[in-house]
């Protein structure tokens, strides 16, 4: 939306926003600091009566006698070995049918039980509705009982039509638990194909079913369902998500490789490819760096492994550790002056290889998953020599962007060449005037300007 608005700064400094800025040198902030000093230095009388006032906290900061504190205490006492590791085998049968009636057998039998009979304790519910004989219940009644948590049986809904009516009734009751319960029954009593077909036109039920399958971890069935629905991208993402459960990086890498053939959207497919190749590279680096003992690693010990770090972080890491490392090893050689710039360039070959070698990304120097201007930013932050920066600046496609980055980092050659290509004499002149008079760049521009063959625009 374009509006006639005053200049940026003016607008932002106008009355509306002057009230407060999050800037350190604010007057108010220094007043605060003063108050803090004042408060901290306030002398208080004897503290003996203090104990009840102050919330007693343990070393971990949890109030003593809180549940979290208690849980931690138990956990740490276990660790210190005070708790028995092996369960005692108690010969007294404590499993009796009296008492609460929540017998062990009913608890675990249920997961393998075929018929669906659920009973619920009536907690302080005064009346029974007299209808406890479940198989006579109508559709409405069944749903109502399910909503109330009373006993019910779905077995009597045998025909497909009945089952679908049941499902639709459950959906209209809006209770997610009831819908899921009916779906569990249908899952067991209908063929996969029929159930899928019927769910296609029942959006609410479908959503509940998908959620249920996700929660029970029935990956295969879920994939089948998504496939039947034609939701291929969702299928691919669900499958890809599994990588989060794989701890071992080698196996994770292999898993990612297997994901490459999944039906992702074009963009996502490229991202997954990058993910795989990045991890592959990180594994190699990690293997090598784990044992590294050169100075840079000693001076700046690694806080974490490089595995599974984002690309940008990996790049920073590589620049930092691998450039430094090679520079260290060069320091001990006598013929440093002779090697000079070339040696430095060579030391960057390791970083270079991140972009050049085919085995990393399968990309040649021409392409990279990260835009080259970002690469230049990162390299510059790691004090890469100008020559190296220029190489990468040259790889930036967009001419405007290329020029602005070159100007930012003073990559003279790139700038000069660009102005030359634009045949813009004036720009060249004004740029020359900013340079040192006897620098090579200055001379280069002079040469260009005196070159009769160039047809300047201006």
């Amino acid at each position, binding site marked *: 939306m374009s509006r006639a608005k005053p200049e940026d700064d003016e607008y932002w400094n106008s009355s509306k926003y002057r009230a407060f800025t999050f800037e350190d040198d604010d007057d*108010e902030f220094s007043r605060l600091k003063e108050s*803090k000093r004042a*408060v901290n230095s306030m002398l208080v009388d004897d503290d003996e009566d203090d104990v009840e006032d102050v919330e007693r*906290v343990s070393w971990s900061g949890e109030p003593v006698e809180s549940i979290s504190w208690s*849980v931690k205490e138990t956990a740490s006492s276990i660790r210190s070995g005070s708790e028995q590791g092996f*369960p005692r085998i108690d010969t007294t049968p404590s499993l009796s049918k009296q008492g609460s009636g929540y017998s062990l057998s009913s608890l675990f039998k249920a997961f393998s039980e075929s018929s669906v009979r659920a009973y619920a304790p009536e907690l302080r519910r005064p009346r029974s509705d007299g209808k406890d004989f479940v198989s006579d219940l109508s559709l409405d009644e069944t749903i109502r009982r399910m909503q109330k948590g009373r006993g019910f049986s779905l077995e009597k809904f045998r025909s497909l039509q009945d089952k679908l009516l049941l499902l639709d009734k459950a959906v209209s009751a809006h209770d*997610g*638990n009831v819908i899921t319960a009916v779906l569990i029954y249908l899952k067991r009593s209908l063929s996969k194909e029929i159930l899928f077909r019927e769910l296609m036109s029942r959006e609410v039920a479908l959503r509940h079913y998908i959620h249920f399958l996700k929660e029970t971890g029935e990956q295969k069935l879920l994939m089948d369902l998504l496939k039947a629905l034609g939701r291929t991208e969702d299928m691919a993402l669900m499958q890809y998500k599994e990588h989060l459960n794989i701890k071992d990086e080698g196996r994770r890498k292999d898993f990612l490789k297997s994901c490459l053939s999944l039906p992702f959207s074009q963009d996502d497919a490229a991202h997954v490819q990058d993910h795989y190749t990045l991890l592959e590279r990180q594994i190699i680096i990690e293997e090598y760096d784990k044992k590294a003992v050169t100075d840079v690693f000693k001076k700046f010990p690694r806080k974490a492994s490089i595995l599974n770090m984002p690309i940008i972080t990996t790049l920073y890491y590589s620049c930092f550790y691998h450039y430094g490392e090679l520079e260290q090893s060069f320091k001990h050689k006598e013929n440093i002056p002779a090697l000079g710039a070339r040696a430095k360039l060579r030391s960057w070959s390791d970083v270079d290889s991140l972009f050049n070698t085919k085995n990393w990304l399968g990309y040649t120097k021409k392409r990279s998953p990260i835009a080259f201007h970002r690469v230049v930013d990162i390299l510059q932050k790691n004090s890469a020599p100008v020559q190296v920066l220029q190489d990468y600046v040259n790889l930036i496609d967009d001419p405007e962007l290329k020029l602005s980055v070159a100007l930012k980092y003073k990559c003279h050659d790139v700038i000069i060449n660009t102005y030359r290509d634009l045949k813009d004499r004036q720009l060249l002149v004004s740029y020359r005037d900013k340079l040192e008079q006897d620098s090579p760049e200055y001379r280069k521009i002079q040469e260009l300007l005196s070159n009769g063959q160039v047809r300047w625009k201006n």
Partner: protein
Amino acid sequence: MFISIYSPAPVVWHLQMAQTERRDAPGLPDFFQLKRLARDQLIFLLEELPGKKDLFIDADLMSPLDRIANVTILKQHEVDKLYKVELKPIVSGSDQLCFLIRPRIKTVKWISDLVNSDKTAGRFRRYKIIFTPQKFYAYVTTDEWNFYILPLDDDILSLELPEFFRDTFLEGDQRWMTTGGGALHLLQSVYGSFSKVYGIGRCAKMVYESWRELTEEGEQRTRQPEFAKVFLIDRDVDYVTPLCSQVVYEGLVDDIFRIKCGSVEFGPDVTSSDKSIKVMLTSQDQVFSEIRNEHFSNVFGFLSQKAKNLQTAYDKRRGMDIQQMKAFVADELKGLKQEHRLLSLHIGASESIMKKKTKQDFQELLKTEHSLLEGFETRESIAYIEEHINRQVSMIDSLRLLCLLSITENGLLSKDYRSLKAQYLQSYGMDHLLTFANLRQLGLLEEQQTGETLTVMESKVGKLVNDKTVGKLTDAFSSLAKKSNFRALSKRLALVPKYGEEYDLRVPRDMAYIFSGAYVPLSCKLIEQVLERDGWTGLEEVTRMLNGQEFAVTGL
């Protein structure tokens, strides 16, 4: 009295502010009755398994439980040791195990595995499962502890259901609708019926239906209503507000330190010692209650003044004689020490907030947010977001900005979407591929659909529903996301105010002060309008832009 049941975060500070201005509002009901009720019910359930027992608690139930029944009470009812539910083999020597859990399939599976392995080892034990707030369809006999509502403060109630948002809005699961209904029913039975109910949103409607059913079956109450009105609003009616950075004190504390279940943990940098401390942030904390809703710019001044007052109060003792001193120590000293302690903490917290926000270039962030809300200089905002991502400033904030951009602009241009997504993945990790898929599903971060109006989409979808042989469903059908109409809404409701003169944050004239005068929260404005009109008349255009589903009912 406003209840917003759908915010996953329990803090509804802007509504509190509106509340205090209404002098005619009746006093607050005593919500701590709810705590007593919940506690009594829990004790009843625990006593159904007599004798010593170990108690396993779900991680996110631990804090709420602490507010209801602390360790002492549990021990009084023969709970021996406390464990956190951790989905791994247990180390407990007790013969009786009690599980207090949320209804999650994974947890129940873990328990059944546990029971089975005991059986295999020949170990005999008694087990009791208590689901809260309600049980789900489980194959086993279980109890439910209808602990629906936790009062977090005098005027804030929370359902404390962290999974609510994801289950309801991302997965489209309706399992929590009855929980909402149950909570309202509980409130009604304890505090009397409501005279009016307003609502907007698919879920609001379902919760209302569920509650109405419960009411119809239950006994009729003829108590004098303590609650006049209830407003039910779906979270997805207003995504914009939670995406904006908060600049009132309580909001900033939440932002930096994370307020959970009404309490927060302050580290050594705040306490100026080597210890961390966990404090409850409620109106019981007299320092906090005075600054919580203030714009951050007012906080320093306030705290300075309070510090001065405190010093003066302490200094009073100098001229005192023995009698006066005794009285002072007996009556005043305790209070002053308490205040001193709290003041010190909040000053420390403020300092910490200031440091962190300056470091993160907060000012620039706010500027960008305001631009997006206004729809002004969008390309510059996008450039800022790009830089934010490239600098790897904060995973969440980068995402917040992207979503804000998407909602205010009705989706990103395709080229922007792809470019920003790629940069995000490179900065923060490839597996955020999944994050982006989820956000798209929610309608929080999406690409602009080229030239499609609502009616075209509707007819497409309509056709598919009737055509059963078609196996493929479009994204529109399977997504619950609504089309965002923020710009139109903003104009219609005047959400982005234009002020002629200076906007005084110390004495704010309207709700926009929460965002430094830049934006009036949509949901709050909506509620204000509906209450003023006692219904939805005159707001037809607005409700249409919010995809309908509004209702207003008198007397339940």
